[in-house]
């Protein structure tokens, strides 16, 4: 899918070609502008924003909004800045990604190389689970987390994200391993390798790309989640997205747009960084999650 080599280019005249370039550049601007505005205005004092020109460069460069967003801004009732929530998100995302990826890899391995009756149905059930509107599980989930005593905690969120991340991680690994030659597994069986040995020594060494895809996908999704965070961890354990929303949409006081923008960039930072570093894999994950493997 990503090995795009051929263009379906057609012969075009100079006028058409100019039009195409203009069109493409206008849209590039459309996509870039909001982020540009955020960056510029996060480096301005508040008066420069309220006095009216969003697109102008700052006259008075300042990093005060960043410092405020990070450590002193009012989030809910506490003036803590986003810092504690950023760490909440990290503490949530790392184990959740790790666990769902490992389980997904094992599931994909079993579903393709140790096939049994009903495996396709089972996979179909897991696949559908990727696409349910999470509203359908909010009520019972709130109850179960309460009963397990992990409501409002990072642990609770980890559980939630592992459970609802499993479908996608299984999908990725299943599709990847389906294309992995089964004869290699058979050869290893004859060579005396057991279930885990085959996984560890034969499949895993060739799984680099799909692990990257899966980790990036899970990381992006879990980091960016708002619904579960807002529902199950709105207090001190809230993740970054929830804290950002609290920062931006708190009705008290004057809206500090520059601080909001700085906070938004902080919330976007980790996923954006991943996108810049490994965009190719990010796109592959998106495509695999939507079309085929």
């Amino acid at each position, binding site marked *: 899918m990503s090995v795009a080599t051929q263009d379906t280019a057609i012969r075009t005249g100079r006028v058409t070609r100019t039009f195409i370039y203009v069109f493409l550049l206008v849209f590039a601007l459309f996509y870039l502008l*909001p982020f540009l505005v955020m960056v510029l205005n996060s480096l301005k004092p508040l008066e420069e924003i309220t006095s009216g020109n969003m697109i102008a460069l700052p006259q008075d460069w300042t990093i005060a909004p960043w410092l405020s967003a990070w450590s002193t801004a009012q989030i809910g009732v506490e003036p803590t800045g986003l810092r504690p929530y950023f760490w909440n998100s990290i503490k949530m995302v790392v184990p959740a990604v790790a666990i769902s990826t490992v*389980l997904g890899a*094992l599931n994909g391995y079993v579903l393709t190389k140790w096939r049994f009756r009903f495996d396709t149905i089972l996979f179909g059930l897991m696949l559908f689970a990727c*696409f349910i*509107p999470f509203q359908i599980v909010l009520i019972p989930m709130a109850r179960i987390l309460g009963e397990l005593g992990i409501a409002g905690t990072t642990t609770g969120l980890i559980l939630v994200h592992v459970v609802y991340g499993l479908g996608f991680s299984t999908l990725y690994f299943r599709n990847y391993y389906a294309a992995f030659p089964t004869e290699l597994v058979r050869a290893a069986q004859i060579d005396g390798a057991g*279930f885990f040995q085959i996984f560890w020594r034969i499949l895993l060494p060739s799984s680099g790309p799909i692990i990257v895809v899966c980790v990036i996908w899970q990381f992006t999704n879990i980091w960016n989640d708002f619904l579960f965070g807002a*529902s199950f961890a709105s207090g001190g354990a809230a993740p970054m997205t929830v804290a950002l*929303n609290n920062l931006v949409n708190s009705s008290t006081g004057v809206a500090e747009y520059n601080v909001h923008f700085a906070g938004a960039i902080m919330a976007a930072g980790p996923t*954006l960084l991943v996108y810049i570093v490994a965009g190719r894999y990010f796109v592959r994950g998106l495509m695999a999650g939507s079309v085929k493997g």
Partner: protein
Amino acid sequence: MAAADTRADFRTRMQNWLPKIVLAPSVTLMLIFVYGFIFYTIYLSFTGSRMLPSYDWVGLRNYENLFRLSHWEIAITNLGIFASLYIIICTLIGLSLAIFLDQKIRGEGFLRPIYLYPMALSFIVTGTAWKWLLDPGIGIEATMQTWGFTEFTFNWIKDRDMAIYTIVIAAVWQTSGFVMAMFLAGLRGIDNEILKAAQMDGASNWSLYRRIIIPQLRPAFLSAFVILSHLAIKSYDLVIAMTDGGPGRATELPATFMYSYTFTRNQMGIGASSAVIMLMTIAAIMIPYLYAELREKK
């Protein structure tokens, strides 16, 4: 000999069971947390639950009430407007960008990531950016006015009749690049020789695309439709961040409706029934699609 036999036997049996043992935790989690919960919520939607779940059976009353609520009517009307515009505009932009980007464009490698990066952002971030960008006091309107266009107004986000369209703008901004990537992959998958043959047959550029290329993008259209409609129905974060359902109820969607009825208005039965409606809508789109995909793969 007998000892060796039992050992071999045990090992074989272990090897036969291991795959199932490994799969078991995931399957259990899925059965409880996905399907168990779905059934639980469906059950609640037939009860008179308010702040807490209760088990008094009320039949279809929640659904009847739901469809009598003007609030819900607004939510689904909004969803209709939002989803159809979102899908159509994303598809048009995505397809145009993909076709144009496929014309041996210099700097393709530079442009593509720009189109796609919003997909990496949280809807809350997107919402924050567009909330202030569209805010008449400091955003585009104010900027245009300081540039001398004093008559320029763009205050949709504060306008009850227009606010839902601002959600469309932000959502399109976030996902149209992704739709572009899907179409681009589709275009790159088309056999070049077919195009050469069509050109030998004297097809013009327009008819080449209309008759040969776009029909071959059918799978990409289908995937785009399925993914976008699925995203539209689930849309929640973006609305919360941009307008919080307002002004008034102007941007209320089923997802925000469900949340507020269940958790702030203590109408859990009605909240559950709205969640069930959402699930059924998505299922009606996803199940045939997934079924076809799975069958194809076998």
